[in-house]
């Protein structure tokens, strides 16, 4: 892991962060007073069983959802109280997403999916390289329906990386893939983010995959139950 400057702000800081969802007559606490500080440049794994609040935390960090109470800052920018336009700018300039179901635009080719975002942030010149970086230069002209699940997820990673975001958020990126394909996808993700000193927060419930993280944050029932250094093992070396 590369060293970062002392005065660089933390990638994510949360204080007494709550997220409540109304469900019929009852209110469900998805996050219950989460306090967290994640340094920049790390590959952070949010680990926990289903319903532990890890995806909720990721969504809050990505500006897809708003906290019920508490404070949340990403690279020193408080997300609480941002209006829609500010959140859109935040998502465009700061965050990259990798979704479990890939979420590619089905009518655009692999390269066009990457260029779509590249043109939005002014990095169109990096699109070809981004698709090549994930090993899909020869499949760039294919539609998502002509790609395998693993290839689609690699396109999604290229799409996230071409923005050169400060923070990359990945929600169960291998959830829809078999272990081997998942490991290949994570290898690409790991290599590309390491080389760019990018902060990554990845959600998983798989303890084996959690070994690749620099830091592992354990959640249970909406609370952080432990933050510990990870093994930082490259995915290619992880065995089931």
């Amino acid at each position, binding site marked *: 892991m590369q060293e970062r400057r002392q005065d660089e702000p933390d990638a994510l800081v949360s204080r007494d962060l709550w997220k409540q969802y109304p469900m019929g007559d009852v209110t469900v606490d998805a996050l219950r007073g989460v306090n967290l500080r994640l340094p920049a440049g790390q590959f952070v794994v949010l680990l926990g069983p289903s319903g532990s609040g890890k995806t909720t935390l990721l969504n809050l960090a990505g500006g897809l959802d708003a906290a019920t109470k508490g404070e949340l800052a990403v690279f020193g920018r408080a997300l609480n109280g941002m209006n829609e336009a500010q959140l859109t700018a935040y998502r465009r300039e700061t965050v990259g997403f990798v979704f479990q179901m890939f979420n590619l635009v089905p009518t655009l080719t692999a390269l066009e999916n990457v260029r779509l*975002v590249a043109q939005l942030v002014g990095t169109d010149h990096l699109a070809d390289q981004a698709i090549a970086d994930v090993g899909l230069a020869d499949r760039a002209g294919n539609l998502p329906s002509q790609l395998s699940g693993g290839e689609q997820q690699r396109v999604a990673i290229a*799409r996230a990386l071409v923005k050169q975001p400060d923070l990359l958020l990945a929600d169960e990126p291998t959830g829809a893939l078999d272990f081997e394909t998942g490991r290949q996808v994570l290898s690409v993700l790991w290599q590309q983010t390491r080389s760019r000193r990018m902060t990554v927060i990845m959600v998983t419930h798989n303890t084996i995959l959690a070994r690749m993280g620099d830091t592992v944050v354990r959640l249970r029932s909406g609370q952080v139950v432990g933050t510990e250094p990870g093994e930082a093992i490259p995915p290619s070396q992880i065995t089931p």
Partner: protein
Amino acid sequence: MLWRKLWADTGALARQASALVVLICLGVALYVGLYEAYQNLGDAYDWIYETTEFADASVLLSAAPESLVESAETIPHVRQAMGRLVKDGSIIQRDRERKRVVGRFVGVPRQHRPTVNDLWVIEGHYVADADEALLEHQFAAENGYHVGDVIKCSYLSRERDFTVAGLVLSPEYVYLVPSEHSPFVSPGTFGVVFVEEDRAREWLGVGRRITEIHCLTDAGYDEEVLEKLEALARPYGLETSFVQEDQPSKRLLTLDQQGFRKLSVFFPILFLLSAGLSLYGALSRIVRLQVTIIGMLKASGFTSREILVQYVMQGVLIAVAGAVPGSILGHWLAVWLNGMYADALHIPIMKAGIHWDTLSIGFLLAIATGFAAAYLPARTAARLPPAVAMRGEMESARGITAQRRLVEWSRLRTVIYLIPLRGVFRRASRTLLALGGIAGGVVIIVTTFGMHASTMDALGDFLAGSRKYDIDIQFRRPSSLAFARSAAALPGARAVSFTTSIPVRARSSWDSGEMMLTGVERGQHLLRIRSQSGEPVDVTPGEIWIPQQLADRLMVEPGDPVMVEWVESSRQRPLRRAFQVAGLVDVAIGNSAYGEFDDIRRSFSDHAYPESSYGAFFACAPSRVDAFKHRFDESDEVVSVSTTEDVTEQIEEQFALMLIFVGVLLSFGLVLAGSTIHSVATVSILERTRELATLRSLGFSARTTAGIAAAELCVLTALGLLVGIPLGKWLNHLYIQSFSTESLAFRAVLPLWIYVATVLMVYVLVGLSSWGALRRLRSMDLAQATKAGE
């Protein structure tokens, strides 16, 4: 368990299902409403005709001895024969708005009711005294006559006063027309007075002679009897003859009924087609959303047939839910429409029974629509391999190849523009559905507006387009023309032009057809006659201008000869004269041909002039119209006077009913077009929730994302308009053409405003429909939406 799922799925789609139920309901309501109204009309007319012993065969002749009736009774298959005296004159109404109107005087027996063509006494009593008369009820209502009033009738200057004993409905005048050549006669300007027959003979001065014989025949022998009746009447100046179906009033009523029937089939079919398309779209979406569930069901052991039945039943269920209220609503609509119709035509009775056959057909049509719309998505669901379905995949190899081609075909530097462009064609079934839905809405709007425009065009053409005079005068005799000439010299008068009109039959070597031959003066400008190309034309002796419909029937072209016969000639042989077809005239209403005044007068009118054969068009200063009208009204030379304003009022009254129908259809059409477009707009946005939410997650603003969805919808709408407008134009043409008869030729007119209004309305509907969906896009839960199924 599958049934529980069926109910739950339908319930979960409550909003969309409700919209579909409304569509089906409207389609069924329109069909049941219009068709039942048509049936009710038929029932009412049949009832009137049966109870009044309406004649099966009739001949009208110049004059014959009463003994001819006895000869008629000896014709095989004649059940009953009746002779009577009928003459046209005028009704003088000095204390009423219309001072002098055309009157038809019909002799009826005093001792008993007419054995054929009986009268239905609506108010008062049957004639019991020679000074009493019965008045046709529509005329009485228009001119304010009541039982006990006195009515002044005039025939060849012999005036008689009669006390109105009763107001009656006659089967011969249910639709009040003097002849088939005058389809637009207001009840206010043509009255039928039934006078005690002995008094009629004395007053009309014809002795014991009759001018009409009417017969009841055994079923199916009317034509045969008519032939023999014609042979009997020929020596006495046979003027015209007809079986019941061709009787002018009944014929026009039948045309009206047929119009009703066409309406009741054409528009509901459009409605149900659109409803079917929307249903197909909604069910296709359900299948796509439930693809993994379908996979699970098949993997669990449910057969393809069970899956097929389940999804088909979903469509049928929605159809049934729409058909039940639709049938009830339709029945109410029928009652309402019949009420409007009865009011407009002053029909005192109207049947409003429940027609179970129509209700059943409406119900079956709805179910067939539901079945047909659900079958394809259901078959797709049933045929999905479980392994593929459980992975949530539905795309076929053919679909992927098509998308591949689309990618090659569409390349743009800015990728964001590719999304709406390719989105339009992303899935053939979806594109076709959307195009079909929007095009269907467009067709309904275009045809409904088209009906209105064609009606108004015919009206405008008949009134403003051709009539440049202020007063139309019909004279008692040819010498009255001098009276008009003297009036033209008075202050305020601008011009006078003489005319003569007679009903004739034109023959070619192919066919024959009746028309009203009007003679107008050369160079006159008060009646504008236009060629098919719209150019004003003038008349020349030896030539006649004939309407297109008649030319088509006779299969003649300009320059061809036609033989013209005056069928109402009192001579024993019809008067004949050969003319050359000068050209074809553009006539919207009526079946008029035009020739040169003196030529027509010398050839026909002068030989035996019935009243009203001669007339004049009179133009004057606007401020003097009433004064001149009054002056003409007061003259004994005049049979009837009508101002252009009167005629406009009369025709607008006749058209009012049609405009009500157009209004009803336009309202239904807009609701349908709105529902269809709403369905297309909503589905095209909702089914892409995840894609649009992803774009927002990637940093695209809500406005840009909404813009992408809106742009795609706009392109789809434009394509729908491109398909729908020519289709609507073609259907409108077919539809309007189906209404045209020899005396009423509607042109399929689609002025520019209809196109502009259609485009605007469709885009407004698209805008309104997508507004809600786009608002939901702005406030969508991105965290949830990015995980939503597609």
